[in-house]
C-alpha cells in the first residue's frame, strides 16, 4: 500500500469512525433502550476502523522511529481484523458491550465494576439485573496509551486525542 492509498484508507477509516460514534450517541436515546446486538456490531466496526487507521498511519508517516512489535501485529496486514488486546481502546466501544441498557447519564460509582473478583453484595432478582454493565466513573486509561508511551506514541496521537474527547463527551451524556 503506497502513501496515497494509505491516506485514502485513513480518511475512510476516520469517516466510518465518526459515523459510528454518532450512531452510538443516537442509540442511547432510542426507544426501548440500547440494543446489545447493534451496539456490539457498531463497536466491531469502530475497532476495525481504528485498526485500519493505525495501520495506514504507520505506512503513510515518514519512516522514522521503529514501530513497536505490539502495533506491528495489528498493522502488518491491514486487511486483518484480529485485535490482540481483549480490551477495546475506546471507552465508547466498551460501553455498548458492557451496557445493554439503562446507563443513560448514570455515572454513579459502581463498586462491582472495580474488581470483577469481588462478590456482589446485591441481591439478584429473577431478571438477574446485574449492574456490571454500568461504566465505572473513573476515566480508563487506554491500554494503547501505556504501550505506546515508550516510543512516544506517534501513530495514534490524534486519534487518541479524539477518543479522549469522546470519552468525556459520553460520560457527560
Amino acid at each position, binding site marked *: 500500500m503506497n502513501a496515497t492509498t494509505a491516506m485514502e484508507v485513513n480518511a*475512510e477509516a476516520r469517516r*466510518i469512525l465518526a*459515523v459510528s460514534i454518532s*450512531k452510538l450517541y443516537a442509540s442511547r436515546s432510542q*426507544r*426501548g*433502550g440500547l*440494543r*446489545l*446486538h*447493534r451496539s*456490539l*456490531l457498531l463497536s*466491531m*466496526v469502530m475497532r*476495525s*476502523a481504528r485498526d*485500519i487507521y493505525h495501520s495506514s498511519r504507520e505506512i503513510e508517516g515518514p519512516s522514522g522511529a521503529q514501530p513497536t512489535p505490539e502495533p506491528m501485529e495489528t498493522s502488518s496486514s491491514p*486487511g*486483518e*481484523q484480529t485485535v490482540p488486546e*481483549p*480490551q*477495546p481502546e475506546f471507552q465508547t466501544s*466498551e460501553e455498548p*458491550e*458492557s*451496557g*445493554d*441498557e*439503562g446507563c*443513560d447519564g*448514570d455515572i454513579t460509582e459502581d463498586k462491582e465494576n472495580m474488581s*470483577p473478583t469481588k462478590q456482589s453484595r446485591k441481591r439478584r*432478582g*429473577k*431478571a*438477574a*439485573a*446485574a449492574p*456490571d*454493565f454500568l461504566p465505572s466513573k473513573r476515566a480508563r486509561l487506554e491500554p494503547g496509551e501505556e504501550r505506546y508511551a515508550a516510543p512516544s506514541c506517534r501513530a495514534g496521537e490524534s486519534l487518541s486525542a479524539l477518543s479522549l474527547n469522546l470519552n468525556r463527551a459520553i460520560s457527560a451524556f
Partner: protein
Amino acid sequence: MGEDTDATPTLNHRGFLPDHNYVTEADIISTVEFNHTGELLATGDKGGRVVIFQREPESKTEPFSQGEYNVYSTFQSHEPEFDYLKSLEIEEKINKIRWLPQQNAAHFLLSTNDKTIKLWKVSERDKRPEGYNLKDEEGRIKDLSTVTSLQVPVLMPMDLMVEVSPRRVFANAHTYHVNSISVNSDYQTYMSADDLRINLWHLDITDRSFNIVDIKPANMEDLTEVITAAEFHPHHCNLFVYSSSKGTLRLCDMREAALCDKHSKLFEEPEDPSARSFFSEIISSVSDVKFSHSGRYLLTRDYLTAKVWDLNMESKPLETYQVHDYLRSKLCSLYENDCIFDKFECAWNGSDSVIMTGAYNNFFRMFDRNTKRDVTLEASRESSKPRAVLKPRRVCAAGGKRRKDDISVDSLDFTKKILHTAWHPNENIIAIAATNNLYIFQDKLNSEMH
C-alpha cells in the same frame, strides 16, 4: 415452481394515508405467521396490536373468491411499559408470534415484545343465552313484581363474535431483548431467546423458567457475539438450534446437559479472507434461522445471502443463494443509512423445495432448490392489481438498463424493505409484509404442492 402468481386484493392493514410517504409508525408490521393448518394468519405491528386473518372456505358458487383471507380478529397484545429500575421504556412492538397446534375448538398463540411473552386464546362465540328470569335483554335487573312465570334460558344463535383473552403472561425472565420464541414439538414447552440467554418455559407455568443457554461472558467487555435467533426442531423435542451474530449456528441437545452452553454441532462456514471489509462482521450476522419441515435442513439468512445447511454437515452450507449481491459494493452507504442492520427473515415452502426471503424496494425473492431457478417479485399497489399475475423484476448494475422494466441499483428505494414473509404450510400461498401493508399472493395454477 410457477412464477405465475395471482394477486389477491391487497389487505390494507390500517391507517394508510393516500400520500404513501407518510406512514404511521405504529402500523408497521413487525411479524407474520401462518398457523399450522394455514387457515389463520396472524400479524403483529409496532403498536403492539395483533391482527388475525382467516381464510374463507371455498365457495362453489364463486370459485374465484375461494381462499381469500379476511380480518378475523384484532386485539392489543402489548402496551408500552416503563422499567423504573433501569429508567427504560419497553417497546410494545410485537417481535414474534407463534401459533400453538390446535387441540380444541379454540386457537392459541404466543406473542412477544422485547421483554414479555403472552399466551392468547382465540375462541368463537356464536350462541348466547336468552330468556333470563331476573335480567331483561339489556341486562338490567327486572322488577320482581313483573316476573310471573319461570323460564329456562335457551341458547340462541347470534352473530359470530371472536373473543380473545390473555391466558398466560410470561414476564420478568429476560434482561436483554427477546428476539425469538419457538414452540416445542411436545406441545407443552416453548423457548424464548434474547441476546445472551435462552429460557425454556412450560406453557402452564408462568412464574419460572429454565435457563438452557447462557453466553453472557463474566466480563461484558469480552463479549464477542450475541444470539440472533433460535428454533426448536420440528420433530425432536430435545433438539434446538440458535444462530449468532458471528454467522455460526449451534445445534443443542437438551438431553446432554441442563445448561446447553456446549453445542452438539457447530455449523460454520470458513470466512473468505479476500472478502474482508469493515463490515464483514455485520453482514455475516445471521438474522433468521428456520428448520425445514422435514427437520433435515436449516435455512439461514444473513445480510446478502440465504443458506441451506444439512444437519449432517457442519463444515459448510449445502447451498448458498445470493439475495442481492449488488449491494456488496454499497455497504458503506448502507451502513450510514442504517440499512445494513436490517434483519431479514426467511421461509420454506411446505415441501422444502423453495425458499423465500425479502429484499429492498419491496422486492422479495424465491429460490427453487431443485431447478436452481430464482425469481424477484415486487409487492406494491401499482404492480399488484387483484387477479393480476406478478411480473418478475430484475435489478441491474448502475447505468446498464437492458430491458424496459429493469431497475438500476441506484434507484432502489431502501425505505421499502420486506423483512417479514410467511409461507402457507401446505399450499402456495405467501404473506408478505411491506412496511404497513400486508400482501397475500396465491398461486392459482399450481395450488397444490408438487
